[in-house]
């Protein structure tokens, strides 16, 4: 352990709010910055203005899906109106537990929304990149969209059980049987090519 490291527990007063800006893992009350985590205090100086005080933990922070973030999810079930998914990753951070989400038919692609059919876009078991558009209301859970070129199916298995390769923005092909299946394919970015 680096002796210069300063550890703190929740509720510990870090400094006055005039000396620094509150970063992640902290909160401000009565003009002071307090730690809200048990972790290590970090002070980064900004070029202009006050340094930022934050508290970091080594294990991944307890992330939650939030509006605008890209998530990786697995399709569990589909019907004619929507696909139900399990959110597995936020960005590249795995979630500790599963959160459920819904991709409605009208959120699958950006163009020709009226012609979209869910079963021609996703199949159960597909790994999909999507973006959170809403935390949902009292009836529904997280609402997701794939209406962007970079979003959609990134990994899918064919009927024969093989991992398929994308051949266009709306089709994938099985390397063994060469049958083609419809999907809303994502234009894959290099950092998501993993296996």
């Amino acid at each position, binding site marked *: 352990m680096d002796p210069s490291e300063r550890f703190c527990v929740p509720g510990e007063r870090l400094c006055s709010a005039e000396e620094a800006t509150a970063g992640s893992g902290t909160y401000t009350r009565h003009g002071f910055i307090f730690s809200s985590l048990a972790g290590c205090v970090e002070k980064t100086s900004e070029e202009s203005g006050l340094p930022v005080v934050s508290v970091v933990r080594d294990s991944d922070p307890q992330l939650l899906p939030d509006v605008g973030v890209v998530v990786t999810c697995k399709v569990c079930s589909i019907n004619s109106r929507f696909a139900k998914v399990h959110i*597995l*990753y936020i960005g*590249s951070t*795995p979630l500790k*537990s599963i959160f459920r989400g819904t991709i409605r038919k009208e959120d699958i692609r950006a163009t020709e929304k009226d012609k979209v059919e869910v079963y021609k876009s996703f199949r159960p078991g597909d*790994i999909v990149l999507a973006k959170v558009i809403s935390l949902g209301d009292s009836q529904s859970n997280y609402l997701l969209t794939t209406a962007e070129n970079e979003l959609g199916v990134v*990994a899918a298995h064919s009927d024969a059980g093989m991992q398929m390769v994308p051949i266009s923005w709306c089709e994938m092909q099985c390397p063994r049987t060469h049958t083609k299946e419809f999907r809303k394919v994502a234009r894959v970015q290099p950092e998501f090519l*993993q*296996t």
Partner: protein
Amino acid sequence: MAEAFKTVEPLEYYRRFLKENCRPDGRELGEFRTTTVNIGSITTADGSALVKFGNTTVICGVKAELATPTKDSANKGYIVPNVELPSLCSPRFRSGPPGEEAQAASQFIADVIENSQIIEKEDLCIANGKLVWVLYCDIICMDYDGNLLDASAFALLAALKNVQLPSVTINEETGLSEVNFKQKNPLMIRKHPVATSFAIFDDTLLIVDPNAEEEDLATGTVTVVTDEEDRLCSVHKPGGSPLTGAKLQDCITRAITRQREVKKLIDKVINSIKPK
């Protein structure tokens, strides 16, 4: 990226390790996790033991009470084992009454007690037809990382060895029982049954002392219980992939070796806590 591979394709990830004859936690296929036992730490129980297999932690507390025996077995006491999997031990269990797995484990422990004769139930009789001991053996899992059955059976055995019963006499004149807490006697432990579990991968590969992850991925499990006379007390194989006779024989041989080690460990700890 290994982390991501593990999340998406856990079985494939695991097979790659097995090909190299090792496991993701660094053990060999036939290697047990570090096993420790702590006896007598719960002073409100009449006997107790805490057993750890790596992360898996199980505690057993025995409480002795007095009851009247049933008519048809007037000279037999009761041993009532219960396994609890509280929500604390793993997120997979909900709070509330025992679920399927806890019930199955309780039944397994009850079978081990019944088949192995750890204790003769006649030893628990105080007055024939009138008064017997009831041993409530409550086994609670505190940290669930696989191999619950082995740990539970081990904790039960160690806790029973720790039990001290107060002496009870029946007053001839009044017919009432009198309990003397100053004079305590240990239980007579007749056999030392030890359970050894194996996870089966792809119908052929056997790995010993599986952790929770391995149990989830395995195609089946088998638990073998043997005692110090190398006798087979129980074989528990709840479904899953089939096993050849030769493989089962292999399991039994390994279980016998394990029984020796566990027995040695218990004796060592019991001796270390004995008042000089």
